[in-house]
C-alpha cells in the first residue's frame, strides 16, 4: 500500500523552531513529527510513503536517507514548484500512488497527531465499498473548522459546511483519508482544495464515508496546540505502552525521558513532559507541561512550565521559564532570569528578564 503525507510549506506558525528545521522534522515526544506518522503507516503494511513538500527539499531528503534504512519503508519526495493546496499534490504524485494493484492509498496531513487507527480505517473502507473514507473527530467548537455532516449509522457523508454559523454537527475533518485510485481522476494538477472541491463532489456521488477517529486528535502546527498535543499523546501512551513512560519518586504523571538523557537529584518532573536525547537536567529542577529538545541543558534549581526548550539551548540556574515560552535552537537563558512567554529566535542569549510575552529576535 502507498501513502502521501501533505507536508506543504514554511511552518511559520511553529517559528522559531521552524527557522532551524522544516516542520515535519521538529521533534514531538522525542522524535521528528513525521516519524510518528511514517512508523504507523509502516506498521499497517504501507511500503512506500510520498512526502508532498514545497520547502527545503534538501533537508528533507537528507533526513530520509538516514531513516529509510532504519525504518524499512521506502520514502520519496514529490516537490511542488508552486503551492498546490490540499488536493493538487495528489495529482502531482499520481504516478507514485497508482501501482496498478487497485489498492486504496492513505493521505495524511503532516500536522496531525493521533493514535493512527489505520487497521480500523482499512476495514471500514472495505466494508462500505465507497470511493473515499475520511476520518473525522469530534470537537467542542465546530464553527472554527469545516464540519462534516454525515449519517450516524452508515457514516455516509452528506455535505461539508465551512465554519457554520448555526450548529450542523460537531465532527470535523481530521486530516486522515483513505482513497481509491479513482479519486485521482477527479483532481487536476493545479492549486486545489480537497475539502472545498474534491470531497463535496465525491459526497454528491454518495461515495464518501466518514469514520469517527477513536482516541485523541490534535493539530500540532502551533506551539499552544503542540503542548496540549503532548499531554494527549502521553496520556494515550500510558494506556498503550506504559513501560515507555518514566517512573520514580521524582516523576509526576506522564513523563517521557529519552534513554540518553540525564536527570539530577532532587528534581520533580511532570506531568506531561518530554525530555529528548542527550539532554541534561541538573539537580533541583522542576519541569511541568514542557518539552526539552535534543541536547538542551536545564541548570540547577530552575523551573520550567508550559514551554518548549529548543535544541541545544540552556536554561540557567534559578531561572523561571513559563507561559508559552518558546526557545529556538541554541538559546541561552542566563542564571536567575524570568521568562514569561518569551519567544526567542535561534542563537540568542537572554540576559535580562522577559516580563510579558514578547518576541526576541
Amino acid at each position, binding site marked *: 500500500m502507498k501513502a502521501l503525507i501533505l507536508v506543504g*510549506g*514554511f511552518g*511559520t506558525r511553529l*517559528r*522559531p523552531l521552524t*527557522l532551524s528545521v522544516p516542520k515535519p522534522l521538529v521533534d514531538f515526544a522525542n522524535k521528528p513529527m513525521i516519524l510518528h506518522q511514517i512508523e504507523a503507516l509502516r506498521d499497517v503494511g504501507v511500503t512506500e510513503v510520498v512526502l508532498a513538500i514545497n520547502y527545503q527539499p534538501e533537508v528533507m531528503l537528507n533526513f530520509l536517507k538516514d531513516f529509510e534504512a532504519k525504518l524499512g519503508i521506502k520514502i520519496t519526495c514529490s516537490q511542488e514548484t508552486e503551492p498546490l493546496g490540499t488536493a493538487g499534490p495528489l495529482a502531482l504524485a499520481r504516478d507514485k500512488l497508482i501501482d496498478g494493484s487497485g489498492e486504496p492509498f492513505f493521505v495524511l496531513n503532516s500536522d496531525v497527531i493521533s493514535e493512527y487507527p489505520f487497521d480500523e480505517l482499512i476495514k471500514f473502507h472495505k466494508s462500505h465499498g465507497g470511493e473515499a473514507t475520511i476520518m473525522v473527530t469530534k470537537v467542542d467548537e465546530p464553527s472554527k473548522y469545516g464540519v462534516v455532516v454525515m449519517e450516524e449509522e452508515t457514516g455516509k457523508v452528506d455535505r461539508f459546511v465551512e465554519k457554520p454559523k448555526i450548529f450542523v454537527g460537531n465532527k470535523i475533518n481530521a486530516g486522515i483519508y483513505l482513497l481509491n485510485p479513482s479519486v485521482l481522476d477527479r483532481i487536476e494538477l493545479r492549486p486545489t482544495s480537497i475539502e472545498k472541491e474534491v470531497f463535496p463532489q465525491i459526497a454528491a456521488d454518495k461515495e464518501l464515508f466518514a469514520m469517527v477517529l477513536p482516541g485523541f486528535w490534535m493539530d500540532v502546527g502551533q506551539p499552544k496546540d503542540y503542548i496540549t498535543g503532548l499531554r494527549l499523546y502521553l496520556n494515550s501512551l500510558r494506556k498503550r505502552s506504559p513501560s515507555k513512560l518514566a517512573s520514580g519518586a521524582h516523576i509526576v504523571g506522564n513523563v517521557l525521558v529519552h534513554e540518553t538523557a540525564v536527570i539530577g537529584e532532587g528534581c520533580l518532573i511532570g506531568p506531561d513532559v518530554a525530555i529528548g536525547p542527550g539532554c541534561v537536567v541538573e539537580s533541583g529542577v522542576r519541569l511541568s507541561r514542557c518539552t526539552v529538545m535534543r541536547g538542551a541543558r536545564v541548570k540547577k534549581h530552575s523551573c520550567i512550565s508550559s514551554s518548549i526548550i529548543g535544541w541545544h539551548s540552556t536554561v540557567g540556574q534559578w531561572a523561571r521559564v513559563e507561559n508559552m515560552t518558546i526557545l529556538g535552537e*541554541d538559546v541561552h537563558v542566563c542564571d536567575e532570569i524570568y521568562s514569561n512567554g518569551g*519567544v526567542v*529566535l535561534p*542563537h*540568542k542569549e537572554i540576559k535580562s528578564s522577559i516580563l510579558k510575552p514578547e*518576541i526576541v*529576535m
Partner: protein
Amino acid sequence: MGSSDERVVAVIMVGGPTKGTRFRPLSLNVPKPLFPLAGQPMVHHPISACRRIPNLAQIYLIGFYEEREFALYVSSISNELRVPVRYLREEKPRGSAGGLYSFRDYILEDNPSHIFLLNCDVCCSFPLAEMLDAHKIYGGMGTVLVIKVSAESAHQFGELVADPITKELLHYTEKPETFVSELINCGVYVFTPAIFAAIQDVFMQRRGKAELRRVTSFEALQSATKSIPADYVRLDQDILSPLAGKKELYTYETLDFWEQIKTPGMSLKCSALYLHQFRYTSTHLLASGNDTKRASITGDVYIHPSAKVHPTAKIGPNVSISANARIGAGARLISCIILDDVEILENAVVIHAIVGWKSSIGKWSRVQGGGDYNAKLGVTILGESVAVEDEVVVINSIVLPNKTLNGSVQEEIIL
C-alpha cells in the same frame, strides 16, 4: 605621493552569521555585509573607498561566513572595480587583532608599507587617502579614524583622548560608564606592518602571565574559568589602550558623517547618507525626475536599471529600488529600501520601511514606520516573500519571511 615601492593592503572585517543577530530579520536571508545600502552591498562602500588609496595592491575580506556566501560577490566585484578582492574565512573567533594576525602571511605577501583595517558595518565617507597622508606625517605605528559625537551618546563607543596639536592618541577606553571624551573610535585604522609585532607582544605577555599563574593551582582554576583564550586579541582593549600615550598611535578626525550599521533601521538611515553622498561622488547613480515620461523623483533616489517604475508614481526622498522591482501606477515611496523582485501595486504607499525580496504590496495598502531608526519597531521591515494584501495597513511592524498579511497590523512582530 607614494613611490612604487609603497604598496597598501586593505583588510575589511565582515563578521559572521551568529554574531549580529541585531540585523534580523534581514540577516535571515542574506549575510549583513551583502545587504544593499543605496543600491550597493554594504561592503561595496568601504571597498570602493579603498580603491581611492594610491598603490592599493589587495583587499581582503575577513569573516566567519562560509566561503560560498562570498564567492560570487568577490569575483564580480574584483572584475567590476579592477582591484583584487579575496575573502578569507576565520576558523574560530580570535578578536579583531587576533584575526588580523592569523592572516598575516596573506597580508604581508605583497610586502605592504601600510595596512588599512576597516569594519564593514561602518557607514562613513572613508577619507582613506587623506588618513594615509596624515599617518605618514605622524610617523607612528598606527592611526585611528575618529569623530566627535554628542557627550550623551559617546558611551556607546570606544572613547579616546587625543593631543590637540600632535594628534597623538593619549588614552583609549571602550564603552566607559562615566564620560571620558566626545571623540570616538570610528572603526577605521591604518597601520605599518609593526602592528603584527605589537599583537605578538600581547601573546608573549599572556603566555608569561599564564606561566606565573601555574604556580598556585587555585589561581590557575580561577583564571581558567574567567579569562579569555590566549589567542583572542581585541584591537581596542589589547592594543589601542595599552599603547596609548607611547607615541605609537595617532588620530585623524573626520568631520563628515559616521554611523554604525547594527540594525535594519540603521541600514535605512545609512542608505540615505550614501545616497546623499552620491550627489558629490557619483551623480550618475542617482535617478533624476526631469523627464515627464518617467516617474516623479524628489530628493536622493537610486533605481536599478532593470526596475520598472510607472510614470505616475512619486519616489523619494531617500529611496533605493533594487533589481527587477516593479512600482505600479500612483504609488508613493518615501524613505525606503525596496529589494529585488518586489511588486508594489497601484496607489500603494510605503514610508520608512524596508520591503524584502520578492514581496508584494497590494493596491491602496500602506506600509509605514515611524522613522525612529534606533527604535526596535521604528522602521517597518518586511522579510523575503511577504504579501501585503490590498488596502491593508502595516505600521511599525516586523514581518518574517513567507507571510501573508490580510488584515492590518500595528506595533507587532509577526513570526
